[in-house]
């Protein structure tokens, strides 16, 4: 285990320069590019130049960029991401207010992509070169070309507007939201804890369309990899041995082949998560989901520098942690890997 701890520490240390590079990049882009946060905040109202300068001074954006940069880094090390320009509240609390919504969506998006991706990939591999294999492969390739926001809108048209099976947008129905109190920020968890069947159903229904939208592209990617990996594994000697022993085909496929086929797929999980966060921007926008990604888009429009920087650093840290966790988990899944 000593090896793993050392490896984890090394990786954590490597994350720091990566975060620093990203942060510096965003910090500079925000300040070098046109777009005045004070003007954006005042929203075109006619304000005297003196008052504008006063605001600039109060927000601390009138000082030289290097001074701002060093101060900002110092603040971040202390866990202070500054106050949002538009709400004047600490960015950290704004982020933590919205993060559970994104995490909930990401979790169910991943769940959908796994079930659908592994399922179709497995099916195609077992029935290789039969019609079902071709259908699945066309679906896999097609899913790469699917614009997420469009898929979300189409699902809304079909399943919300025309059929009325699911709500169009948001996390919870208006009437139920009136009495609903969220303690953790994870609505489904809160609903289950409340034990009220109607609330659980409502929250769950709100989750379906966004999760399918977010998970769809990933499902294609996973399915493709599962199929390729399964085909390779099904050719392996130990699968032939398992068959020769007279084991049932189902057991050979699920227990001997699939488990080994999944090993290379786990490695892309970290990358997958980065793509998922990118998809969350569009999914949250389409479904009016009050998460961190739509918060970021709104902050960009408002030129809310501290909020933009905070959200980006937060997302980057989150992805780094996931990547690290995946690498560590890898050594447990595949005992041959040693760090």
């Amino acid at each position, binding site marked *: 285990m000593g090896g793993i701890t050392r490896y984890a520490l090394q990786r954590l240390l490597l994350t720091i320069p990566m975060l620093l590079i990203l942060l510096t990049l965003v910090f500079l882009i925000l300040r070098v590019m046109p777009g005045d946060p004070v003007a954006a905040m005042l929203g075109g109202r006619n304000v005297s130049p003196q008052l504008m300068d006063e605001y600039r001074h109060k927000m601390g954006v009138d000082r030289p960029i290097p001074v701002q940069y060093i101060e900002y880094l110092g603040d971040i090390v202390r866990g202070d991401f500054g106050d949002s320009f538009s709400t004047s509240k600490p960015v950290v609390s704004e982020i933590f207010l919205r993060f559970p919504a994104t995490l909930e969506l990401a979790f169910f998006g991943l769940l959908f992509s796994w079930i659908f991706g592994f399922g179709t990939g497995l099916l195609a591999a077992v029935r290789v070169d039969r019609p079902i294999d071709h259908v699945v492969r066309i679906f896999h390739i097609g899913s790469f070309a699917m614009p*997420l926001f469009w898929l979300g809108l189409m699902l809304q048209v079909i399943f919300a507007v025309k059929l009325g099976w699911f709500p169009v947008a948001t996390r919870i129905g208006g009437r139920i939201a009136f009495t609903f109190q969220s303690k953790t920020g994870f609505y489904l968890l809160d609903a289950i804890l409340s034990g009220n069947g109607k609330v659980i159903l409502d929250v769950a229904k709100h989750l379906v369309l966004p999760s399918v939208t977010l998970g769809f592209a990933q499902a294609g990617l996973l399915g493709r990899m599962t199929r390729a990996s399964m085909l390779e594994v099904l050719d392996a000697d130990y699968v032939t041995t398992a068959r020769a022993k007279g084991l049932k085909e189902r057991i050979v496929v699920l227990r001997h082949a699939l488990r080994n086929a999944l090993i290379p797929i786990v490695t892309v999980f970290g990358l997958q998560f980065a793509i998922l966060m990118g998809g969350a921007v569009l999914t949250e926008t389409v479904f009016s989901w009050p998460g961190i990604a739509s918060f970021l888009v709104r902050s960009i429009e408002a030129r809310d520098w501290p909020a933009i920087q905070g959200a980006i650093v937060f997302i980057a840290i989150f*992805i780094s942690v996931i990547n690290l966790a995946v690498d560590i988990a890898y050594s447990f899944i595949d005992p041959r890997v040693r760090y």
Partner: protein
Amino acid sequence: MARGMIGVLDWIVDKLSRGKHGLRHQTVLKVGLVIVIAFLIMTVLAQYSWLTPYSPTKYRDAPRLEGPSIHHWMGTDQLKRDVFSRIISGGKASIIVAFGAVALSMTIGSILGWISGFVGGFLDRSLSLTMDAIYSFPSMILAIVLVAMFGAGLGPMILAVGFVYIPTYFRVTRAEVLQVKETTYIEAARAVGVSSVRIVLRHVAPNTVNAIMAVSSFNLADAILTVAALSFLGFGLPPPLPDWGYDIQNGQKFLQSGSWWLITFPGLMIIALSLGFGLIGEGISDLVNPKRKRKKV
């Protein structure tokens, strides 16, 4: 006409495969090429209004928000504009930005990759770290931040999307260079006293072209989606101009009232074009890496 086109495609595929692998039946590649070429021709012609039945931008004496009919195959929008005319000419921004961004990132990324891989040492380590930092971050979010800061329009979109793809080319070329660097013919070139610049340009770079080709097709497919998403979020072309992403955003407002045609058709165009590039990528990957071709089980 159709036969002539297939003939031309056969010739292109033949050139691509250089007749070496005997892979003349590249259906995937051909289908992809047909789609992309058709879109290119359609978009160019539409700019001269040779293809569009109505003007895509001018308001007409037509019903508002009418569903598909004989006169308006794909319906009309809230400003009485013909949806069919708009989607035919709406690919201009996507195509220009996709090609521009991929050309930009390919040039910068590959050059950095060659240099970094060849020189090695501190430069290589710091460049790799920077590229990894950009690569590990969600590209969609980075593109949105960049385009919002650069301002809306074609140029800023090319810069933003191009920037995001630089690490992809950097990684691919750098990995290839590291492999090529160890070969004996590079050693021989060095021993003869060939300059570093010449080694990179004449001996290292050409070896990375195959990998770059395959990556760039997939990249184009992804760029089409990214551009559409940026336009959808309101960072694309200014309003009156037809654009798929923007038209979908516009259609979203009338979604609750059931005007499905406003979003359905632009979306199908995005899918078709992105799929075309994706298929070309598949085909090229099979060509340059025959091992990748599906194993018969």
